[in-house]
């Protein structure tokens, strides 16, 4: 029977082509919409994770209590040993040391006299180790406006806007004046090797990025790190997995009584990210329910109209003696075949678009020009396991339900009325 129905669908394009196109478009839109929404919200979360929170963050409880002040005097001492333990216990995550600092950037003239000064927020990350993923994680290569990434100790990156304000260009020398972890005056020379632009005012206003070892030398932080960040190998935050890591780590290294023990917290516990995560998950869910309901109504309606349009045909088939049940079942089978074909086509097309958006993203930098919070300028779609079936299920079942409802009419047909319809 299936073969017979397939032949019928192929030969009678009126019965198949439009319903398949409608279903495919609906499923495709659902997939693209789902992956885009998931990606946009995920990008905002991951952007914060990469620059600030990590998927998990280890620090001393004392540092945690004053985190906004970047208190390097409360940093983790013996950070190398902590890193070794982390890599051994949780090898499925990438662990990195970071040092945040604030200071004054002093630009000298040829005699060493101050020409101009500006306040800066600095970040020390591992830029020079060959195996480090930090430059890639912070998208530094793509953010370069002038010059190059640091290739040797003593080189630094500066936000482009800040470098213009200070009147310096790659190759120029500047001095960082700050405070060491022992609260001494820190004075350290850097050579500007490149300028960067992230497209976010919060980062572009006055950022300096230096190699971790230079930050350690400048701030007298030998074998110390303000924070140790952990990133899930998949690149995305996994609440369940990070929860397990945190539980295990804190049971080994955290001591409530010791403000200099090591405490690990989740991305959720930083910068109100927990609220944002919950809110975004609920928002994605709500938008998807609205969208899928709308799509389902359209597909259901298409199934309904398709069934109603064929009332004459059903009348004829009943008139020549076909059983009502048989007509109904064939109609449902046909709808199922159309639904599956349309949904498979929709998933295929939707996934192509979603993959493209996941890989390349869309640059909304112009819209983000004056954003003062840390959000990315390029947004990507994100394909999850849910993406594969989120459009397929309504694609198949909405049209099927529509057809089933339309088909109920078959059982109400009276033979006398059928003859009248045929005569007309």
């Amino acid at each position, binding site marked *: 029977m299936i073969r017979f129905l397939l032949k019928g669908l192929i030969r009678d394009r009126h019965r198949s082509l439009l319903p398949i196109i409608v279903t495919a478009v609906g499923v495709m839109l659902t997939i693209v919409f789902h992956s885009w929404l998931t990606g946009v919200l995920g990008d905002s979360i991951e952007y914060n994770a990469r620059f600030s929170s990590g998927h998990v963050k280890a620090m001393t409880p004392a540092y945690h209590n004053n985190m906004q002040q970047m208190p390097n005097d409360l940093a983790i001492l013996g950070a190398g040993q902590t890193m070794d333990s982390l890599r051994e216990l949780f090898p499925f995550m990438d662990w990195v040391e970071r040092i945040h600092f604030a200071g*004054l950037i002093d630009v000298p003239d040829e005699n060493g006299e101050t020409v101009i000064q500006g306040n800066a927020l600095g970040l020390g990350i591992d830029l020079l180790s060959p195996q480090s993923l930090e430059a890639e994680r912070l998208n530094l290569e793509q953010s370069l406006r002038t010059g190059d990434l640091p290739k040797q100790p003593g080189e630094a990156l500066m936000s482009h806007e800040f470098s213009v304000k200070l009147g310096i260009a790659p190759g120029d020398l500047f001095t960082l*004046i700050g405070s060491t972890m022992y609260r001494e005056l820190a004075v350290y020379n850097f050579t500007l090797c490149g300028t960067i632009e992230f497209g976010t005012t919060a980062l572009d206003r006055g950022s300096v990025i230096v190699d971790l070892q230079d930050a350690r030398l400048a701030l007298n932080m030998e074998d110390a790190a303000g924070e140790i960040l952990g990133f899930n190998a998949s690149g995305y935050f996994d609440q369940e997995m990070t929860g397990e890591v945190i539980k295990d780590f804190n049971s080994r290294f955290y001591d409530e009584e010791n403000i200099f023990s090591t405490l690990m917290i989740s991305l959720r516990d930083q910068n109100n990210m927990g609220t944002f995560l919950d809110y975004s998950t609920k928002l994605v869910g709500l938008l998807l329910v609205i969208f899928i309901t709308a799509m389902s109504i359209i597909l259901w309606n298409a199934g309904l109209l398709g069934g109603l349009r064929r009332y004459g045909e059903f009348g004829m088939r009943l008139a020549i003696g076909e059983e009502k049940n048989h007509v109904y079942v064939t109609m449902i089978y046909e709808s199922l075949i159309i639904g599956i074909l349309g949904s498979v086509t929709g998933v295929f097309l939707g996934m192509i678009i979603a993959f493209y958006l996941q890989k390349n993203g869309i640059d909304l930098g112009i819209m983000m020009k004056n954003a003062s919070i840390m959000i990315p300028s390029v947004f990507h779609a994100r394909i999850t396991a849910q993406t594969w079936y989120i459009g397929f299920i309504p694609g198949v079942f909405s049209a099927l339900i529509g057809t089933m409802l339309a088909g109920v009419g078959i059982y109400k047909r009276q033979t006398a009325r059928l003859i009248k319809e045929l005569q007309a």
Partner: protein
Amino acid sequence: MKKLTVPFLFILYSLSLHAQAPDGKEIMRRIDQNMSSDNRFFTSKMIIHSVRSSRTLESRTWTRGKENSFTEYLFPVREEGTKMLKLGDQLWIYSPSTDRTLQITGHMLRQAVMGSDMSYEDLMEDSKLLNHYNAELTGSEKVGEHDCWVVELTAFDPGVTYQGKKLWVDKDRYIPLKEELFAKSGTLLKRTELSDITNIDGRWYPKKIVFKDMLQDGEGTEFIIGEIRFNIDIPDYVFSKGNLKK
């Protein structure tokens, strides 16, 4: 008779005490005589006890009057060759690792000197009390085994770092053994304890001062003076910016 004797003796004692007690201004003058000098040279050791560790720095300092001061750090290696020059109300620091001479101004003056409990403002302060404060003798207390005058100082100079001071001044040697330094709001900012009082060239001078910044964690900073010489000839070039890079 016995009933009358006790109050009489008390009144007599009080009167005699009042008669012996110098006024606040006189106490400040005598402190200044001990603590201030036209010029001096000293070597010192600063032991900084932070919450997590202790560090020692060594330096040598030349001062001339209240205007000029030059300090060179000798230890540890990281700080070796770092120099500080105070000329009037200006302060420069030379960092040998960067070969930069930086002027310390504005909010940076409130930062800790080498991570200690002393700020650059403390270094900039004119040590002569008479130039900045009115004093009131408020009582008498013992600090350790020493009888002290308790003197409360109120600044008449609005530019001075500490708008209020409470001193416990040794009655015999006219040297403060304890100080509390207050902000204008009355907040206690610092506490110092002066000990190892030594007679040098006819003046009493504390060879050990413990500073405690009350707004910071940590156990305070010990400032221990080694060699000290008063009223010596110091060449002009010592207090010049050119000397920073030498």
